[in-house]
Every structure is written in structure tokens, then in C-alpha cells.
């Protein structure tokens, strides 16, 4: 693997102190300890739009919101078997996150692909939250190993296995990558900017399609998701 510098590795609590969060730098590798819960569109809708009571104490029990639905089953005796764990793309949840961060006090949002620096600056930083990305993103088996126990599954009847609120006890669960910092900088945008510098060269010898698509962009630094 050539002479690449290894990124820093850090262990972090799922109820982290502001000081611990301030320590984190873009690109650091994080392993988590403590309780983490999954919440995605189903939970957000139920908690924020339908104003259902959130079935756990947030953020004292956990300040770590994972955008994920695990590969798991609920056994006949009510116990759980959890296999692999993989995040889902977070940008789709931007609609609910500002209110969710305020209400839940979440300090760690964990998912796939990150958000934009605009999102980070406008509601992550004011709420003292940062974004952790899963790695790969297919490292489901490794993350599964970091799950010590499934403590509860809330709202399974109402939302189904995939959208339910899974409460997971993590033991050195990871790796995750720090994708935003306490100034709202965005790791993915930093990388995209570096890559964009080279793109005109790669595109040499290509030509735009004869038939355009309505509204198509030629701006290669476009973030697409924003």
C-alpha cells in the first residue's frame, strides 16, 4: 500500500463531552462505546410529525443517532439476533434533522455519505453535533461485531423491522470516519474539491451528448445531492 500515513484512531463515548468532540479532526477514525439508537424516516415522522413520545431518555441514555436498519431477526422468545449493520444515505433525512437534533440532543449523527457543509453549519454546529460516516460503506460484518447487545427494539409493530428504533450497546464499534468538525467543515466536500481539480483532464477526449437532458449541469464541482 505505498507509503500512506495511517489516520488517527480514537475511542469515543456515545454520550460524548463537548471537549471530546472538539478534539475530533476530519478523517479521524472513531470507535464507539455505549448506547446507540437507529432512527431514520419512520422514527422521525413518528416522533416529529405525529408527536409520539420517544420511548427512551434522550440524550442522557444515548446521543448517537445511527441512520441504519440492521440485518436482524426477532426470535419467537422475544430475543434478537443481529448479523450485519450498514448505514443508509443520510442526505435524505435533512428535512427532519434540524428539529431532531434540537429535540433529541443527539451529538453524533452516524450514517452514509454525510451532509453538506451548509447543513453542518446551519444546524449541526449550533447543536454541538458532528457527523460520523461508516466506512466502505459495506463494512456490515465488522460493525456487527461491535454490537455487544440489542437492548430494545421500539416501534417495531408500528414501523416494521427496517424502520424501527433499535437500541444497540456498542463495544468498540467501528470503524467510523469523522466527516464534519465543530466548525462545520465537510470531509467529503474537501475531497471532492481536490478531485475536481483533475477532472477536466480526465474528460479530455469526451463530448457532451447530442441530446441534452433538461436542467442538466456541466458544473463538475456540483455536489449533486444539495
Amino acid at each position, binding site marked *: 500500500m505505498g507509503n500512506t500515513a495511517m489516520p488517527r484512531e480514537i475511542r469515543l463515548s456515545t454520550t460524548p463531552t463537548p471537549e471530546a468532540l472538539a478534539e475530533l479532526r476530519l478523517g479521524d477514525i472513531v470507535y464507539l462505546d455505549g448506547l446507540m439508537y437507529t432512527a431514520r424516516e419512520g422514527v422521525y415522522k413518528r416522533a416529529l410529525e405525529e408527536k409520539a413520545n420517544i420511548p427512551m431518555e434522550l440524550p442522557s441514555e444515548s446521543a448517537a443517532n445511527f441512520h441504519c*436498519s440492521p440485518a436482524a431477526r426477532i426470535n419467537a422468545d422475544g430475543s434478537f439476533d443481529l448479523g450485519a449493520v450498514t448505514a443508509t444515505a443520510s442526505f435524505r433525512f435533512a428535512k427532519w434533522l434540524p428539529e431532531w437534533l434540537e429535540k433529541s440532543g443527539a451529538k453524533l449523527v452516524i450514517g452514509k455519505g454525510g451532509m453538506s457543509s451548509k447543513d453542518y453549519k446551519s444546524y449541526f454546529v449550533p447543536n454541538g453535533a458532528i457527523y460520523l460516516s461508516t466506512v466502505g460503506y459495506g463494512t456490515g460484518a465488522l460493525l456487527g461485531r461491535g454490537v455487544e447487545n440489542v437492548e430494545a427494539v421500539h416501534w417495531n409493530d408500528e414501523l416494521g423491522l427496517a424502520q424501527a428504533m433499535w437500541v444497540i450497546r456498542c463495544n468498540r464499534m467501528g470503524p467510523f470516519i469523522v466527516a464534519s468538525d465543530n466548525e462545520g467543515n465537510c470531509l467529503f466536500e474537501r475531497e471532492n474539491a481536490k478531485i475536481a481539480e483533475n477532472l477536466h483532464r480526465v474528460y479530455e477526449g469526451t463530448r457532451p451528448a447530442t441530446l441534452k437532458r433538461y436542467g442538466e449541469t456541466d458544473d463538475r464541482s456540483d455536489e449533486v445531492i444539495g
Partner: protein
Amino acid sequence: MISIDLIEKTAGVLMDKAAIEIPQDYLDGLEGAAEVEDGDLSSFVLQAMLENYKAAKEDRRAMCGDTGCPRWYVKMGNDARIEGGPVALEAALRRATADATNGVPLRPNRVHPLWRTDHNNNVGIGAPEIEYGFEPGGEWIDLITVHKGGLFGTDYRMLFPSDGIEGIKRFYLDSLVAFGKRGLACQPAIIGIGLGGSKDTCMVLGKRAACLRTVGDRNPDPKIAELEDEFKELGNSIGMGAMGFVGKSMVIDCNIEVGYCHTGGMQMSVHAFCLSSRRAVARIHSDGRVEYRTDPEWFTPYQRRETVEWETPQCHEKSA
């Protein structure tokens, strides 16, 4: 006659293997990529992936928490007979899919597009997809399951002859960069390109090029094989690696399949088969033997035939 119980049992084993064991050809490809990758974050990601495949096998747990969409390709030798016929076959594949969802376990991914109804078993309207192919001769049936990931990495565009190779390259790069940013396509991937056909068959060709051919395999048309090499290079020169970090591993391999199209058009589709390139294959013989493999061997000379009639290759040689 091939027993339906054996089909269901084998299908169950395939679901398990696909979800847990990364195919060797893709693993070799990824190890090669990890060796040359020099982006620090990209390298870290590739190492984590290699560890992940190991962990999945050791623990017998799914390599990715996202099941993708399990689907079936069934290929039958012309002389194969199935106990109970095609309806029994389809029921067996649906049962195996549902059972594996609970057994492995796999995340139930399949829901109704509007009502989001979830049967918690990856079975529903049109799910799992079951597609068919046939081969001259043979009393066997090949079962292939592919668990293709993702909402990202696939696109279609109607190009025209005047767009030429330059236009094809453009759309290829556009797709790779668009879905590669932030790693939405979970690259490095096996990229499949479909050229020609109609819109629907173009998508089918591209998807099969990604999912039913292995890393290192080349199209028998030498000029297309050259394009495959060139496109692999081109994708890896974007400067983007795993997760969209600076790097050079974007494409583990590029496979192109073509079909005859409308004289005025040049349809193109691009498909990314992600870091969890999950496929597993078994051939069931009429005498009850089962052989497992990871190469679907889908694109035979028969599947790519151009002529009206099919002559067996031996006759072909005689007449040549």
C-alpha cells in the same frame, strides 16, 4: 427430472453463500486495488473492507447490512425437466428467499413502492426477480442468485451514432463521478455497460454485464475487449477512490455487453456492482449432483448469437 426439494435446498444454500462469501475474483481484484492505492483515507477503507469479508466468513454473518435486492437468474439446459414445472420452481425460489431472510439473517429490504408494505421476507410483487436463459443440450439447471446493492450507481441514456465513443466515454465518466462522490455507489465496483438493445434490454444487458461476468473476463469481440481495458483505466484515473476520497480505485473491472439496436440510436446504460458484489451459482444435474461455483458463465456463445438459426459450435467448425 430434477427434484423440486433439491432445487429449494440448493437455493437456500446459495442465498447464504451470496450474502456471506465474497466471490474470489472480486476479492482478488480488490486486493490488487488495495496494493496500488496510495490515498490515505481510501487505503484505510479498502483495508477495512478486506477485514470485513474475513469477519463475515468467520462469523457466518452477512458482509453488508444492506441486503440489496436478491434476485434469481435461472438457466436451463434444453433437456432439463423440473419436477412440478416452472410454477413449482418459482415457488421454491420465493420460499428460499423468504427463509434465508430470517435464517442468515438478512435485512428485509423489499417494500411496496407506494404503501411501503413490508412482508419482512424480501418477497412481494415482482420480488425476487426471476429471469431465464436457455442453453442447447444438457439436463441441468443453473441457479444464480445476485444480491445487487443499491439505489446508486446505475443510469441510462439515449445516445446516437453521432455521439460516438467520445459520447460513450462522457456518459461513463458522468455516471462514475456523480455516484462516486461521497461513495454513494460503494466503489470500487464492477462496472457493467450495456450498449444498444432497447431502453429496457439495454438496462438488462448492462446489469448482467456487471453481475453475471467475473473480474478479468473479456468480451469475445477483441475491439470491445480493448474498450473494456481502456474504460477500466479511465475510471481509475479520475482521481477518486473508495467512499469518494482522493484515490485511484474506482473500477475493479469494466464489462461491456452489446445488443442490436434501432438504426438511429445507441442506447447506453451503466451499472455499478458494489463492494458487496454478491453472487453465488449452483448447477443441479438430473442425477442429483450439485456443483457450486461463483462464475455465472451466463454469456455463452449461444446467449450472444447473431444468426437466425443456432448451429452447435462443432457444425460451425465443419462448415468454416
